[in-house]
């Protein structure tokens, strides 16, 4: 078991790819925001890459182990310590019963991941342990960790992986490379509601990530975008504002134009609504969003669907046991 001494800032149980199969009842996929770091943490400790682990945001938790386990911490650098001694990240480490793991504030990046051999064994809900706290679904009683809670662990794999396993150079996400992030974005599904000038503005602007950003949506601050004719000349059921459309499904990564405000819809975002999504950020580059901080600059780079899917396949190849060196 893992005892929660300090919960940190909204630390939650997540698994990958998250809650699949309930989109038509309005459930978001949830799951780890930076699935690259998450999957590597699991691979380091010998788990299948999707095994339930913890996602810490901005300020990490303090946790006590009640049994001996292999663990790995990846993602943002929250200066992890084990009984006060610095713990190497991106490496499998053996902990013994009674030891205390402490993560602090993120020095760079925003989200850190903890994998434990055997995984977190909170009860799955609708096929996943991923936490969707807005609806109280999954995770530990539907919510983020709270002080004094105990997290059950699954049986450790036997034979277990060894301590000292590391992620191969080039196989891990380059986190903490400054305050500017180049983020790929594909046109569509509603790109024909925006005119050429609007697209040029979107791809040519330094968008500021605002503090009102979380696992539901990333709100961006920047210029007003201009619309194509379709946004004004449309059947009345689309709604009164230019950005209104007949309620439609929202893809994960949708760059949603909510009135005048751009919001990137991420892990726990709404499944449908009545605003247009002129662009979509590919899931393969979500790690960039997950590790950006309020005040950082996002600059979108236009890619086609084929390039986005090449990125997805490339990420899939990086998140395999071949990424781990012993």
């Amino acid at each position, binding site marked *: 078991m893992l005892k929660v001494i300090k919960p940190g800032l909204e630390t939650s149980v997540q698994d990958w790819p998250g809650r*699949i*199969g*309930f*989109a*038509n*009842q*309005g*459930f978001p996929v949830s799951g780890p925001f930076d699935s690259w770091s998450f999957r590597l943490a699991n691979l380091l400790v010998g788990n299948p890459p999707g095994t339930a682990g913890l996602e810490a945001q901005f300020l990490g938790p303090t946790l006590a182990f009640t049994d001996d386990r292999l663990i790995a911490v990846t993602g943002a650098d929250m200066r992890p310590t084990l009984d006060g001694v610095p713990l190497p990240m991106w490496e499998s480490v053996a902990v013994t019963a009674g030891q205390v793991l402490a993560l602090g504030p993120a020095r760079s990046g925003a989200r850190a991941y903890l994998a434990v051999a055997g995984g977190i064994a909170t009860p799955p*809900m*609708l096929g996943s342990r991923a936490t*969707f706290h*807005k*609806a*109280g*679904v999954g995770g530990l009683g*539907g919510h983020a960790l709270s002080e004094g809670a105990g997290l059950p662990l699954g049986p450790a794999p036997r034979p277990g992986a060894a301590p000292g396993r590391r992620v191969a150079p080039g196989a891990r996400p380059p986190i903490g490379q400054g305050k500017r992030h180049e983020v790929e974005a*594909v*046109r*569509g*599904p*509603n790109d024909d509601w925006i005119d050429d000038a609007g697209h040029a503005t979107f791809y040519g602007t330094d968008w500021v990530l605002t503090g009102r950003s979380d696992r539901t949506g990333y709100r961006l601050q920047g210029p007003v975008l201009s619309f194509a004719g379709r946004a004004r000349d*449309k*059947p009345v*059921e689309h709604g009164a504002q230019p950005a209104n459309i*007949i*309620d*439609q*499904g*929202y*893809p*994960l*990564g*949708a760059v949603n134009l909510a009135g005048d405000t751009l919001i990137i819809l991420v892990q726990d975002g*709404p*499944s*449908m*609504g009545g605003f247009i*999504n002129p662009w*979509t*950020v*590919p*899931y*393969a580059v979500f790690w960039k969003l997950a590790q950006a901080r309020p005040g950082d600059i996002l600059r979108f780079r236009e890619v086609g*669907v*084929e390039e*986005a*899917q090449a*990125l*997805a*396949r490339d990420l*899939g190849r990086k998140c395999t046991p071949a990424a781990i060196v012993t």
Partner: protein
Amino acid sequence: MVYDTPRFLPAGDRYLLVEFGNHMTLEVNFMAHGLAAIVAAERPRGVIETAPAFASLLVHYEPEETSFAAVTDALGRLVAELGPSDQLELSSRLFCLPTAYLDPWSREAWERYCATIAPKTWDPELIVQHNGLADTAQLVRVHSGSEYWVAAIGWWPGVPFMLALDPRCKLSVPRYNPPRVWTRKGTVGLGGANTGIYPEDLPGGIQVFARIPVPIWDPAQRFDVFRDSICLLKPGDRVRFVPVTLEEFAEAERKVEEGSYAFNLVEYQKFSVPAYRAWVAGLDPAARF
């Protein structure tokens, strides 16, 4: 109303949106349900799941197993196999939900809004005004006079977006602006032409005028109808709101609490789009109940 061929709109590396039309009509929505059903049955390679909305179907697929071109190709073939919307036959369950119309709880939500945000016309009265009804009693007759088609579910998990199937019962009203911050679980309302039900205590913008005592959201899965999910409704279900007194409401609520409530659910029917169209063609939509 329905495009001759649907538009396949890319949405990142693993989603696409199939748009069937530019209008919010049942006919367009039936196409989305038809494609969802045939995708679930045929399971084209790499397709993970779909979710219908009013005029479109969102498709989630795995780019490590397929590509945008291959998926749109496969979906295009399935659309052709489906044929035109006027030949569709869709699996559809029918739920009868006991409903307290003009109830004290939706009135309380309106009163709170007036007291804390802005004064506005009482929701049922606003619907009466916008639809040329005689009074709120007629609103109850008209709203409860139709079956409702669950066109989509979402925004918050389990929230149904429902359209009246009987054109004589079609009502429409603008939403709250700004929205309410609080609505009681089980409250029923109308926004645009959609009837919705709140699965939990939630903010929201639809005009509210009724409440059901039975859960449509059950995280503990206490009732057998929740065995596959924690949401009662699925896209393509139908709902009928059965007016009950506050005494009957309280009795149903008591049975829900003790776990003995029996959901009124019909599972043997299919929804035939051609039979529906033939029926609608003979109706006078102006003939209100």
